[in-house]
């Protein structure tokens, strides 16, 4: 009798505790990310496809078409062309094609680049119905980006600065960037 009464009381207490916890959760903010409307910002060390880096001073691509990345690539997915513009000391890149269908994201190109002119992007919303969409024109992509956002962000060597974990959890409005916009 005494034991069963005790059981009723402790059981009831545990029920109340459970309900208090769920009510606490009820008033806390939502944690899920509503994917098509918003998506997670990837951490800094995320390995997306490579992208060209803009020089923060000139706003032009840092790349001067030395073709080291092209040579470093084990699966031949990079094609770089450059030309010497009038009055310039160095060559500058005029074409930078990435065949992402062959890329294994090994990072040899980023490692080979002496000037930090290419880095991993944080793009992961890549989906398409045709294979051709994944042959990306990175030079054009950079120019499009420069039009949208003329202030180039500070160059951060992606492989060296680990992202604080809080940044990865932050949600930002998704910018749907289907490959059709970046390729030709």
């Amino acid at each position, binding site marked *: 009798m005494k034991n069963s009464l005790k059981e009723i009381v402790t059981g009831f207490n545990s029920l109340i505790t459970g309900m208090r*916890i*769920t009510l606490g959760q009820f008033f806390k903010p939502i944690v*899920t990310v509503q994917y098509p409307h918003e998506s997670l910002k990837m951490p800094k060390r995320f390995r997306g496809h490579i992208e060209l880096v803009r020089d923060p001073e000139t706003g032009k691509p840092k790349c001067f078409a030395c073709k080291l990345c092209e040579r470093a690539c084990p699966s031949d997915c990079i094609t770089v062309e450059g030309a010497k513009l009038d009055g310039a000391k160095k060559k500058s890149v005029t074409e930078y094609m990435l065949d992402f269908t062959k890329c294994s994201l090994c990072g040899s190109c980023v490692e080979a680049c002496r000037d930090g002119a290419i880095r991993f992007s944080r793009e992961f919303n890549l989906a398409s119905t045709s294979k051709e969409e994944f042959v990306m024109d990175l030079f054009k992509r950079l120019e499009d980006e420069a039009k949208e956002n003329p202030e180039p962000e500070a160059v951060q060597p992606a492989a060296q600065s680990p992202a604080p974990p809080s940044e990865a959890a932050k949600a930002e409005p998704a910018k749907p960037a289907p490959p059709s916009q970046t390729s030709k």
Partner: protein
Amino acid sequence: MTQFISNALKLLATEPYRLLVFLVGMLAFVGLNAAYLVWVERKGAARFQRRPGPTEVGYAGLLQPIADAVKLMSKQLIVPAGADTTLFRVAPLLMMSPALMSLAVIPFGPHLAAANINVGLLMIFAFGSINVMAIMLGGWSSRNKYAIISAARVVSQNVAYEIPMLLVVTTMVMISGTMNLNEIVQQQAGAFWNWNVFRVWINPLMPVTFLIFYTCMLAETNRAPFDMAEAESELVAGAYTEYAGMGFGVFFMAEYANILLGCALGTALFLGGWQSPFWILPGVVWFLIKMYFLVFSVVWIRWTFPRTQFYGLLNLSWKILIPVSLFTLILSSAMMKLPAMLKLFHA
């Protein structure tokens, strides 16, 4: 024109038309509530799990119930081969109509009840028992093993929980001396400590009585954690497995109508019905606030507790709820007769 309107209103206030207006209103009330309680349930579930819930159809997903209803109505009503066609078709209606009829005696306000009859409480419980039979018939007639298991479970569960429920209600009837719900509410006039839950001077176990009533209400309406009839993880959809389209839709609506009825009854019996605790706002508003608070706690409980095991469910009823409710019945009757007994001793 105004003459015509006032005449029409006078005509509507006379007896047969008044009832008709009330019943149409009740149908609309139940239909709207059944549809939007689904939305409340989904939103509530989402918030308890820290998700946003339905957001796509209309603002905050408010048109979701309409989309669901259209979807259900556009589906074919399939009667499985070998099923008892008549019973299969009748079962959803048998579940919906008692809930609708019982709402007729619920006093939403001092003068807002379709039928202010003396045996309102008795009527609700008489009709309430039909709902068990409806699920049983639905499960049995659909010729499906899951449905039959569910039907058997529903019957044993509802029989087990009807007893403490009725004992508790008998206690309430004894205390108030009437089965007229409106009079029961009127007796709880004054401040909130006059509500039946808090009237511990009549019976110190009054809050416990309310808890027993609430638990039994959850079990009678087959709500989690007592949702043995529709245990998705074990019995597909229980008694509703073979129902398609609006057959299922009516069952679903009836379930919410029953929850609404149970919460309205709990409000009237224990929480002072349309009595306002602060002497502001009309009684109807207070009735709805209290009722929806109970509805919210039904959702709250569903998303807090896991489903009980079946023997746990029956143990709870037979070993705890029935003895305790019997004890409260005896205690309150003893306390009612105590002054008379003391007088007898002194004389």
